[in-house]
């Protein structure tokens, strides 16, 4: 595996963005810090209105930060207009020029940079090949499908070889199957071009499958930055745990602290071992999270006990809803196998075994 270069492509330092004045003012970004490494597929994930698109627009130069610095390879680019930044954007709406052909759309940036004609032509050919659109080069952008427009938008943004490529929810307009295809395509393109990708999405699955690292955002703040595994398995705060995937929340209090972990007595009286994020000293009442697939049902011997209240079949897996004895609900997910349907029936008393290291104490 190649060593990840340590150089930062983009570094956002203490950036705030406030829209409007006085009582109408909206804080879109509140003192955001994030460093994005070179050649990284980095995702900004969050619900709409969390500030992810604002951050992207600040990096692109369409808006200017109220406060803070944005560094590109160590240089502050925050005051530069968009046409002076070696950064290109793939827009959510694609924003292809309707009066130009596919090839002319792709060559636009290079022409604006004043590159010689031979170089432009060669680069356009290369880009058309990269996104597999050679046959449609002379088509009008109105005559091609949504997925093809998406490819042209990508080729157009990649053609000038930007230092960083910004992607603003580029897959949201595509249907499910095409979206899956383009996810793989995007990963391939990122790998082949070696350009830093900053990808904005509200789709947690998209973020998990594509990114090297994810920043989860909410209400103008970055709540957690980490690899998909870290974000999913070790969410730091309740919002992250709740926003990404399905989660069981258990309320309890700290019984005993140990290095990197703690014993938590939950409301029903059971005691479970949970991990604790580095540098966090939990005390008093806490919330513990357990992912549904990190627990399993058993006849007896688990940490939690309850009664099966519902069974939901999803094809690839089945969800077992358990009414806990001390109150509250807990969901257990089990991978389905053709020859093992299980014998559990609604109303059966069950015991829940929480795997080692599966429980995590949240920061709030």
């Amino acid at each position, binding site marked *: 595996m190649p060593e990840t270069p340590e150089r930062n492509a983009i570094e956002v330092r203490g950036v705030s963005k406030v829209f409007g004045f006085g009582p109408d003012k909206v804080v879109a970004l509140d003192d955001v810090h994030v460093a994005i490494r070179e050649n990284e597929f980095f995702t900004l994930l969050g619900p709409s209105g969390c500030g992810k698109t604002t951050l992207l627009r600040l990096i*692109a*130069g*369409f808006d200017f930060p109220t406060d803070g610095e944005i560094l590109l390879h160590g240089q502050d680019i925050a005051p530069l207009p968009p046409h002076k930044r070696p950064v*290109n954007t793939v*827009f959510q*709406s694609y924003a292809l*020029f309707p*009066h130009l052909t596919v090839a002319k759309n792709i060559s636009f*940036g290079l022409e604006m940079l004043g590159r010689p004609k031979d170089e432009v032509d060669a680069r356009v050919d290369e880009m058309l090949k990269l996104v597999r659109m050679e046959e449609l080069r002379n088509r*009008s952008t109105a005559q091609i499908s949504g997925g093809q427009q998406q490819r042209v938008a990508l080729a157009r943004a990649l053609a000038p070889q930007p230092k960083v490529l910004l992607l603003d929810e580029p897959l949201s307009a595509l249907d499910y199957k095409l979206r899956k295809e383009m996810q793989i395509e995007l990963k391939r393109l990122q790998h082949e071009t070696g350009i830093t990708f900053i990808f904005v999405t509200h789709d947690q699955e998209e973020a998990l499958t594509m990114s090297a690292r994810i920043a989860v955002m909410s209400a103008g703040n970055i709540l957690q930055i980490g690899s998909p595994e870290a974000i999913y398995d070790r969410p730091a705060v309740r919002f992250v745990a709740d926003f990404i995937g399905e989660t069981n929340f258990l309320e309890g209090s700290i019984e005993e602290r140990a290095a990197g972990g703690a014993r938590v007595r939950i409301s029903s009286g059971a005691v479970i071992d949970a991990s604790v994020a580095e540098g966090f000293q939990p005390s008093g009442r806490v919330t513990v999270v357990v992912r549904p697939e990190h627990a399993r049902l058993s006849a007896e011997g688990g940490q939690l006990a309850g009664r099966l209240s519902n069974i939901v079949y999803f094809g690839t897996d089945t969800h077992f809803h358990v009414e806990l004895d001390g109150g509250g609900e807990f969901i257990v997910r089990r991978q389905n196998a053709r020859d093992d349907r299980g014998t559990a029936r609604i109303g059966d008393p069950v015991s829940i075994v929480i795997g080692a290291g599966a429980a995590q104490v949240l920061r709030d």
Partner: protein
Amino acid sequence: MSQTAETARKAEHDDVRKRWLLSAPALAIIFMASIGPLLVVVVYSFLTPGPYGDVKWAFSTDAWISVFLQRDIFEGTLGIADAHLQIFLRSVRLSLFTTIATLAFGFPTAYFIATRPQRTQALWLFVITIPFWTNLLIRTFAVQEVIRNEGILNTALVGLGIISAPIQILYTDWAIAIGMIYVYLPLMVLPLYASMEKLDFRLVEAGYDLYATRFRVLTRIIVPLVKPGIVAGSILVFIPSLGAYVTPRVLGGGKQMMLGNLIELQFGAGRNWPLGAALALTLTVIVMVALLFYVRYAAQSERRHG
């Protein structure tokens, strides 16, 4: 022939007849308002002028000849009608100038309105249309009041010591141009606004993102996309400018005639209706030729960019 085929044929027949019947009012209006009068003008242009205006029903091509040629009184030879030619040229020149100037003023105005928030756009459009509430003649006299030698403009410039004596603007081509630009500006702004309002401003952002400067974004993205508005506005300004009557009359003082004034002269004091008719048709032909060139040019540059 089978029963059904017969019925179908009859239904179709009825349908065609019904369509003619339904479009009859529209066709009648088109004939009465457009083709009919034009035919009258064509017929009149081939008749002989009557002594007190009107026409005598005698075929003559004199009117058409004197549109372009004039008989030298002393030698009896035919030469180019310099006076008419000059008026043609002035009309075309002033109309072109007016079109370009209204485009230059109207484009930023329309862009400004189109980039305001939706609610304020209506207000700005309303402001643009306010001059239409006043009679054209009164507006033209108002322009005269501004530019005449003792008018606001000259008095202010002399008072401020910028010039020592009033500049003669009134009764020159400049006065006509100023008047026409003022009168026809809204006709340029409104179609420009209509096409800019539909412009997707994310394309402008995309242009900036792809290293285009503000000027390049204007010439490579905005102008090609709002071209229908530019074409429509130019046509709406150019055509009435060519035939303008009131503005050159009031601001040109009758000395600087345009085609409209020349035509009026033939039907009024000149008592030469056939010549008036021939001149009117010449104006129509100039407009048609200009339009053909313009539309073809627009289509061509469209293809070049597309």
